[in-house]
């Protein structure tokens, strides 16, 4: 088995993880019409106590708990491509490894808060509201590593100065755009309503759409690169 074959296996986990994430998104009753931060403690408690919601909350967040870190192998594949770039130091690939350790861990914590909110729905509504707030604030505001990841990848691509660079330059521009799209989400604490609130146009829809688009585009770009590498290895063999 050639080395690139293993990479193809890792790459094909991407559409699988993608489908699982989309299923979680559709299954969790708090996402399709995102829960409003203006809901009172009683309303939030009623949301978790609703027999139509509770199993869906638990099952979706159990599945997300399994696969929240599912993108790390894809980041590892990006690291491998970065190591083929014409750089003098491994700094950029180290930085992506650091992002891969930091980012997914935070989203896993948001998942834990949602599961805890649903664990004993008969609890005092104030405490359910607390876990619900912690889940939404963690999920929404923690885009720092995602922004860094895209900016670092873009810088690495710009500095990959060789006749045939690993990634084409538009991939760098695309990553910078994705990074910009995530910036408003950092400010989620400042508004209970409107585009910045955690159910808002910028923080929820734009940010999540940017994550989704990044996964699709980078999946295709990586797939083509690995395919080309495999073909080259086949010729060499």
């Amino acid at each position, binding site marked *: 088995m050639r080395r690139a074959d293993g990479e193809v296996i890792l790459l094909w986990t991407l559409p699988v993880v993608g489908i699982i994430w989309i299923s979680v998104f559709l299954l969790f009753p708090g996402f399709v019409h995102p829960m409003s931060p203006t809901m009172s403690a009683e309303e939030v408690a009623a949301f978790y106590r609703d027999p139509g919601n509770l199993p869906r909350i638990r099952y979706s967040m159990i599945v997300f708990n399994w696969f929240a870190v599912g993108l790390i192998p894809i980041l590892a594949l990006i690291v491998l491509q970065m190591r083929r770039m014409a750089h003098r130091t491994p700094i950029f690939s180290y930085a992506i490894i650091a992002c891969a350790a930091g980012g997914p861990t935070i989203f896993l914590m948001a998942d834990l808060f949602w599961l805890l909110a649903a664990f004993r729905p008969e609890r005092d509504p104030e405490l359910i509201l607390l876990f619900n707030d912690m889940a939404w604030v963690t999920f929404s*505001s923690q885009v720092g590593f995602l922004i860094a990841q895209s900016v670092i990848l873009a810088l690495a691509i710009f500095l990959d100065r060789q006749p045939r660079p690993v990634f084409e330059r538009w991939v760098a521009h695309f990553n910078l755009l994705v990074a910009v799209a995530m910036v408003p989400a950092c400010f989620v604490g400042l508004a209970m309503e409107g585009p910045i609130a955690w159910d808002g146009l910028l923080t929820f829809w734009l940010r999540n759409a940017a994550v989704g688009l990044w996964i699709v585009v980078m999946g295709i770009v990586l797939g083509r690169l690995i395919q080309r590498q495999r073909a080259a290895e086949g010729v060499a063999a």
Partner: protein
Amino acid sequence: MSDSATGPEPSGSLLQRIGWHWRHDPKIELWLAWWTMVVFYNLFGLLFFVVTRTQPPPKPWWGPERVVQWFEEMHHGLLIGFAFVFLISGMTAIMNALLAYSIRRMSVSRAFAYSYLVIYALSTLPGMLLLGIGVTVAAMRPDRDPEIVRWLYDFAFMTFDGTMGVFLVGSLVWMVAILIDKNRVFPKWFGYFCLCNALTEVVVAPAWIFNEGWVFGWNGVITWWFQVFVFGTYTGVFITLLRKMILREDFGTGPLPELATDGAPERSGPMQAAR
């Protein structure tokens, strides 16, 4: 490659000089990481000490009502300040990558560099982001039950001040690497300074036991003032030493050459053009 034609850095506006370094400086990766570190620590100081005023920390012995009052007074500073903290938090990734590279440049096993990288990548979460999440959640709803607000207050400050092990073990990994390195990447005295920094994480531990008192509370003389003084000095020192390392860098694997002293003729070569 474009760096083969490096001339001396042109004089001109700051933007022109930056543009020149971007195109021609063979050490651009190192300088990008180093400047990220300088910008991050300046913003970190501004956001924590001025905008959010969470450093020096408020009192651990306050009752729930006083804590609620503190959140009311600080409302906007906390929410705006921590939004910017979240925004810049990913900068730590490239800073840690530079530190890991400094270890890679030493004559020691790569295991040291990888350990350092992973430990500090994890440290951002309990050491900084949980504080921001706890404070943001509390400040968002000032009408919450005061007991719950104080729970968030404890959660925020104790995760921040009471996260010790990552920095303890991380500093010790760096210390051992520096002390056994033969490439002279860092001076040996800095290795012992790493030990001082590691020890400050040990003396923070009483903050988990004493929630009052000026010495051992989370804002105490030993647990906060002494620790911050050592950490601040340590940070300033390693930023300076990393700059020197980049200036001396020759991209080889042997001992790092010393800097040309003032007045002595500089050795020729493409690296000397890079400042």
